[in-house]
């Protein structure tokens, strides 16, 4: 059996992740988190905040909750079931940063936490910023042409 045949044989026989179940839970948990965010939004506007401020505060709240649950060691247990449901919203980003911070604490605050905190979230930050710049340039040129 050559490499290609073996790789195909292995892929064919490996038990697959339950995609339908994972999708359903991702939908339910992800939807739940978004609904929770919407609830916070209503709460903040009810308390008299401007809509833009309320939106920012919703993100901050969700980041805080995800970080807190990560610190308490609960987040990964939820994510095991929720999958993309907790990964895709801002909660996944928060967990990627805070879990790395907890892990690297043993190497100190400079060479550990400071240097490695964005190891997982780094690509999102870099390419997110990069995409923002490109979008900005396109937007600038478009406004020059079409006013």
């Amino acid at each position, binding site marked *: 059996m050559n490499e290609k045949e073996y790789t195909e044989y*292995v892929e064919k*026989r*490996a*038990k697959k992740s339950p995609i339908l179940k994972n999708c359903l839970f991702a939908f339910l948990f992800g939807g739940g988190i978004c609904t929770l965010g919407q609830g916070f939004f209503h709460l903040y506007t009810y308390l008299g905040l401007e809509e833009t401020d309320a939106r920012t505060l919703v993100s901050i709240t969700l980041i805080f909750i995800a970080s807190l649950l990560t610190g308490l060691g609960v987040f990964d247990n939820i*994510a095991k079931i929720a999958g993309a449901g907790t990964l895709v919203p801002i909660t996944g980003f928060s*967990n990627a940063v805070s*879990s790395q911070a907890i892990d690297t604490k*043993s190497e100190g605050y400079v060479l550990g936490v400071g240097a490695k905190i964005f190891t997982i979230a780094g690509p999102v930050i870099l390419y997110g910023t990069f995409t923002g710049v490109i979008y900005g340039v396109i937007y600038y040129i478009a406004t020059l042409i079409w006013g």
Partner: protein
Amino acid sequence: MKKDIIKLKRTPKITSTYSVVGHLEKEGPLGEFFDEYSHDDKFGKDSWEKAESEMQKRALSGALKKSGFIDTEIDTLLAGDLLNQCVGSNYGLSSFDTGYLGLYGACSTCSEGLLIGSCLYGGGIVNNCAVVTSSHYCSSERQFRFPLEYGGQRTPTAQWTTTGAGAFILSENGRVEISEVMIGKVIDKGIKDISNMGAAMAPAAINTLKRFFLESEHSPDFFDLIVTGDLGYEGSEILKELLLSEGIDIRKNHVDCGLMVFDREGQDVHAGGSGCGCSAVVMASDIVPNLECGILKNVLFLGTGALMSPMSLSQGGSIPAVAHLVRLSSLVK
């Protein structure tokens, strides 16, 4: 013709074994047989890496105590783990006044240590030596995968690194003899999925077993058990299926330490245990004691190791693997 099986004229005996495990292993099917465990997986230390070193230290201390030797009577220590530069062993064993050889064979390190130790003894170079290997779920996750609290999902073929250390003392005294060994070859069948290490390692085990049975006077049926290190469910199935297609049937007597150390379904470890602590603690707590009391007579032990690094995988590399074989026989009539 070149012979691959190394037949030892002067055969070492396993004088004592000692196993130290974490809480999940203690709760597993072999829980009652381990010599020592810690409910706190940090073993009283402030980092996972130091915890792993502590396990090695306790494992060797325990094995020495059982054997009646003191550290200065041991000629050579053969030790290894999964951490970069084998720091688990380097730091854990620095307090012992003994010659030290650090080994890296990934999860095959336990069999590699027993193999080298047996050859050193067999060649008359040492009289007493010790083999210690360990792995720790938390230090391995950090090095090879994601932070511990990272919220991700595992695939069904993923394995769970065993938290544990096993130590073996080899000398002229003992009821279990190592009579033959065979050095594994690095086999790479192009598997790149770090979540399917069993499939990456199975071809190495197949290679070693095929070479062994081609040369050996014994058939697979002669052995009470053929023990693989940590192929897990997926790798074990591949091993048995592909060997059968080559005319070697080990379905009746094959066991895998990765499948023995945990209750795969009940403990949610997916395809089973892994790590160089996995085979070490299973051999030290279950297989060798059963040979010592004569329940088992002849056993083949194959430690299986996946030899990649996170960097080689990031660069698109596949996972090479190796499997070293050690033949153990009971001297109890």
